[in-house]
């Protein structure tokens, strides 16, 4: 039972971090479909840094920074040039998918797999990523609901014009939302690859999209999104464990759950799920 719990938590971890990343970005009013690419970029950078320096913790740092960098591209296109946020997010995903293969080829002479690197040593038997993630969930909730920063972030996502009249710099707040988003998803990516001691091509495996589903089902709140991500992780863990007991739950069925639930949520079957009012709408300071 304990092992099942731990397994569920481990599988959920990257989902949770990516879902929180989505909450930060979208609370500020920027749709972040780039989560998938950010995860992958974080995963790659973590392995590269750990490979070159021999230190997995520098790998974690590199993963976070690489996440911020990938999110920065999205922010640059979406905020500075008002590019459609879905398009700019997808562009980041494609960019990272290609770039990661290119770098793998350069460094490891394979477009599929990296060499093996050191992973993080457990803290008293517990995965440090797990500890960090629990702290981050609490901190995210507190930041968005209880701090001035969180209030401003919500304001620019709900009604940017009103926020601006109160002296809040809308684009700067949105930029913060997206960059924090990058840091969190980058950390999620580092978790994915360092846990495997290796980077594998496309190892994010759609987790970024599932995280977006968790954001919607979690109604754009940190705790809600984290809970939805946990649910998806545990569904996956159950499928694995049932299989070894000889009960074959089709993988397709489990893979369908997040998307089916998202449809249900969007259709209003699980309470009302409403995005921030200005989510996805570009904002210009120099209007009128």
């Amino acid at each position, binding site marked *: 039972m304990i092992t099942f719990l731990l397994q569920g938590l481990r599988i959920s971890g990257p989902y949770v971090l990516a879902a929180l990343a989505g909450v930060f970005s979208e609370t500020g009013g920027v749709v972040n479909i780039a989560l998938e690419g950010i995860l992958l970029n974080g995963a790659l950078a973590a392995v590269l840094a750990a490979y070159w320096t021999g230190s997995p913790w520098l790998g974690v740092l590199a993963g976070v920074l690489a996440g911020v960098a990938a999110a920065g591209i999205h922010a640059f296109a979406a905020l500075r040039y008002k590019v459609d946020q879905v398009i700019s997010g997808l562009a980041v995903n494609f960019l990272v998918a290609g770039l990661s293969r290119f770098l793998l080829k350069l460094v490891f002479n394979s477009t599929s*797999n990296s060499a093996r690197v050191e992973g993080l040593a457990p803290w008293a038997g517990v995965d440090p990523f797990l500890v960090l993630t629990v702290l981050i969930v609490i901190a995210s909730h507190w930041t968005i609901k209880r701090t001035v920063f969180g209030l401003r972030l919500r304001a620019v996502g709900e009604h940017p014009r009103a926020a601006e009249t109160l002296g809040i710099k809308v684009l700067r707040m949105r930029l913060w939302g997206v960059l924090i988003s990058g840091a969190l998803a980058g950390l999620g990516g580092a978790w994915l690859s360092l846990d*495997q001691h*290796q980077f594998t091509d496309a190892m994010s495996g759609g987790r970024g999209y599932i995280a977006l589903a968790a954001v919607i089902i979690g109604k754009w709140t940190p705790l809600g999104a984290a809970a939805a991500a946990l649910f998806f992780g545990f569904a996956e863990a159950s499928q694995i464990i049932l*299989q070894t007991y000889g009960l074959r739950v089709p993988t397709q069925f489990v893979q369908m759950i997040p998307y089916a639930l998202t449809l249900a949520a969007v259709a209003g079957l699980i309470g009302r799920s409403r995005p921030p009012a200005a989510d996805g709408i570009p904002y210009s300071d120099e209007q009128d």
Partner: protein
Amino acid sequence: MSPKKSFLAFFLVCSLGASAAAAPLKVGLVFDVGGRGDKSFNDSAFRGLERAEKELAIKKEYIEPTEAADRENALRQFASGDFDLIIGIGFIFTDDVNRVAKAFPKKHFACVDYAVDPSKTIPGNVVALKFREQESSFLGGVIAALTSKTKKVGFVGGMDVPLIHKFDAGFNAGAKWADPKVKVLVSYAGVTPEAFKDPAKGKEIALSQFDQGADVIYHASGSTGLGVFEAAREKHGLAMGVDSDQYKDAPGFVLTSITKNVDNAVYDVIKRQQAGQFKGGVIELGLKEKGVDYIYDDHNKAMIPAAARAKAEEARKLIVAKKISVPFK
């Protein structure tokens, strides 16, 4: 050497000499999901290609496709160029090779693990290289069962398809043949080709099999299996590699590897092409033809109990003599 064979050898040498003078043979190889560096199936194929480059002085090129659609494109790219022989690595190329081979009837194609469909004929310019993996997996099952202390062993498959069922069925049969009381836990990583490159999933599956008491886990799952090795390291359990000797991926934790000599098959088909002896059809390689085997060398000798080794060798003789027929599904 029989007169017939020596004639063949003579012919081979002559044609080798002839082709060496002409422009070098050009061989294009397209990798399977998992790609180069999977330290397993694809790397084995690549070794064959490299050996051919060195010993037969051919010119080689290869492509690692990302998306399903890239596979056919890669084959086409080679076929429309000046390549003489195009090789697709993996069952997943079956349909692609069929299509491209029909479009380029003058080029020669080889497909490793080609899935033969009894209702269709294989194009004449295609050679299907097939292995009886169930036979070597049977020996793997024997070794796993007789090495296990918990009398529970595990199998982790990649994509849930007939090709992987051969490994699964052989392993199960071998374990039960060696010791009917042994329990085999079976899991598959998924139902899409991505199941061959999801080490995170592989690790979680293996961890849960170890937790349920398995102490030896055999994987047939491409780079997903790298996760199985990580789990073995973490739990101090034993894993069994597949296709290539995977000992180096987790030294001390890899009991043995069930090898499939894709390298020899690839090398031989290139050699035949160079000798002008390419012939379409199916080539099947099992224990008897030394197309499949398991690793027993200085690295893992000490890990395999003498009784397990003896029993596996007994099974080998019986399989080669067709006294045991190994199930393949």
